[in-house]
């Protein structure tokens, strides 16, 4: 249920959690502990585009961190934050399982592989 709301809304609104808690008769605290334990859930709204920089081992040794640094620098936000114009939310993930294409950045549901810092700039322009 939480997964569906997350997918639909992009985050778990407090009211939705409260409704589930009373409907399914589980304490709100338990839902809160689930929502904070699992990485798939977010308690704050995300931007229009969700950027996930892969930091799996293969991406790490092939320069994934440099891509993340670049995004933090260019977007002026830290990992986990959303830009003030609500355009991007930046996150890092440990391996998306596309290691043959390392380093990989996933934006929304699109995989961008074998990226360099320069190409990343071009890729970002495609997301308004």
């Amino acid at each position, binding site marked *: 249920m939480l*997964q569906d709301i997350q997918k639909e809304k992009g985050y778990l609104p407090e009211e939705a959690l409260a409704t589930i808690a009373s409907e399914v008769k589980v304490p709100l605290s338990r839902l809160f502990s689930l929502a904070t334990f*699992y990485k*798939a859930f977010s308690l704050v709204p995300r931007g229009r585009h969700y950027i996930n920089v892969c930091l799996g081992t293969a991406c790490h040794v092939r320069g994934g961190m440099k891509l993340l640094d670049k995004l933090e620098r260019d977007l002026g936000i830290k990992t986990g934050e959303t830009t003030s114009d609500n355009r991007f939310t930046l996150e890092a993930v440990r391996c998306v399982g596309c*290691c*043959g294409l390392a380093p990989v950045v996933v934006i929304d549901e699109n995989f961008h592989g074998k990226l360099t810092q*320069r190409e990343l700039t071009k890729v970002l322009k495609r997301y308004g």
Partner: protein
Amino acid sequence: MDLKTYRTHVMICAGTACVSTHSLAVKEALEREIQKHGLEDEVKVIATGCIGFCERGPIAVVQPDDVFYQQLTEDDIPLLVEEHLLQGRPVEKLMYIPEGEKKPVSRMMDIDFFKHQQFVVLRNRGRMDPEEIEEYIAFDGYAGLTKALTTMKPEEIIDEIKASGLRGRGGAGFPTGLKWELCRKTKGDGKYLICNADEGDPGAYMDRSILEADPHAVLEGLIIGAKAVGAHQGFIYVRDEYPLAVKRIKIAIEQATEYGLLGKDILGTGFDFEVEVVRGGGAFVCGEETALMASVEGRVGRPSTRPPFPVEKGLWDRPTNINNVETWANIPIIILKGADWYSTLGTEKSKGTKVFSLVGKINNSGLVEVPMGIPLRKIIFDIGGGVPGGKRFKAVQTGGPSGGCIPEELLDLPVDFEALTQAGAIMGSGGLIVMDENTCMVDVALYFVSFLAEESCGKCTPCRVGLQRMKEMLTAITEGRGEEGDLERLENLARTIQDGSLCGLGQTAPNPVLSTLKYFRHEYEAHIRDQSCPAGVCKPLITYLIDVEKCTGCGVCLKACPVGAITGERKQPHRIDQALCTKCGSCMEVCRFEAIVVE
């Protein structure tokens, strides 16, 4: 089912990696072009699961000619259709050319990457559409199940699996048949089966790939297992990061149910078994079986003490048998071809094959299946084609965050469960991450410790706090603040974490640190004593410089620098202002003359 016969099939890879390089657009272009030439009754395009040579995607293989095309774009398609499919002339310029050679290799099985492999688990990859049950059946699919359900008693199934010598492919290598027997012998109703597809090790993606390429094999394995242990309900716990795998396994379940291979009264034998897919929530620790079960029950995924083991008291306190994806995928073929056949593969204690994901600083990245016991050197150099760019091989990391780094001098080690453990690494789920001279081993250790510190569920203090302290010490070392005695303190702490943690995550967490300390101690010492990072990775210890001999003053780096730290006249050697440089590496990336060096 499409009963028409075609003279040619074009198998186009639709695994996650190829899809992300737009293989589906290539497929559509192919179909358009085939129709344009009126070939739709002669040539069929099939979207297959991962073919494995992910580095070269999108991939297409033309059968029965076995011609391998790679890095295709939509623009290549008119030529491919016109030349190969219409005129019968394979297109050389779209074929694979091995590193350092000029002549392309046309047949897939002649390519080094494929020819040293042995396909058991990945037998159906690239030869069928994973979303069509009839294609699976055409390749002997569900024949193992039919044999097990109609001619074998549960005990006989278990004996067969025991005799095959199959060991769990999830990491620890527990004998599968023995686990099944324990579960069968435990008294209690409502036993459960679980397929662990929470593939969390960074750098490993064989389970995703198997689910995407051959979902019915996993399902068939589960049904056979259900009969053997006496379970009527199964769960497949898949990582949320694998949407395509979730989709394919759900299709497989639907189709198998429709064909009477799943659900009530399977194959008319009176045996019932249902399977449900559960999506994970993005927590590494949920790959641990007790944590996984907590997660399936809808609770926070924290491990609990064993014993009781899941086979005694698992999901909702019922006897539960958990195996991982690759293990389940081995079952149908063992039953079909027999334990005698299976046990001829591999070594004395590790039977069969193992699928590895060969990634990192390697020419041929991808998924490979090899018999157990093959030397690491053969995988990395013969199949993988060695390290790119003429760099020197430094280490290969096996077993994910619980594993270790194996140096060059141990490359002749045969891969089996025991040999890898002895070397301070583990088989794990099968990630092989190759590192070269530009990989800093302290940074790698820090990488894994940070990963584990973040993923520790927090239940056991040595794991929760110990990993944080380890992370701080390693961070200090990579920033040049390391002190004499740090290495001894790290080793000491590592032992405490190993001894004082409940689950596999904590018990194996120090392995990356211990193995790098064992084989690459000199790198740690260089960081501490000389304040230098020999591999040129740790930012606080390196400087980017311009080699005035090589710099042509083209100005490309000057434009690329995000902080304006590079100055210089056109056609004159440039220089980097160290006070401004943020060491982002942008200049090095764009320089075409190798004039940017790291010291």
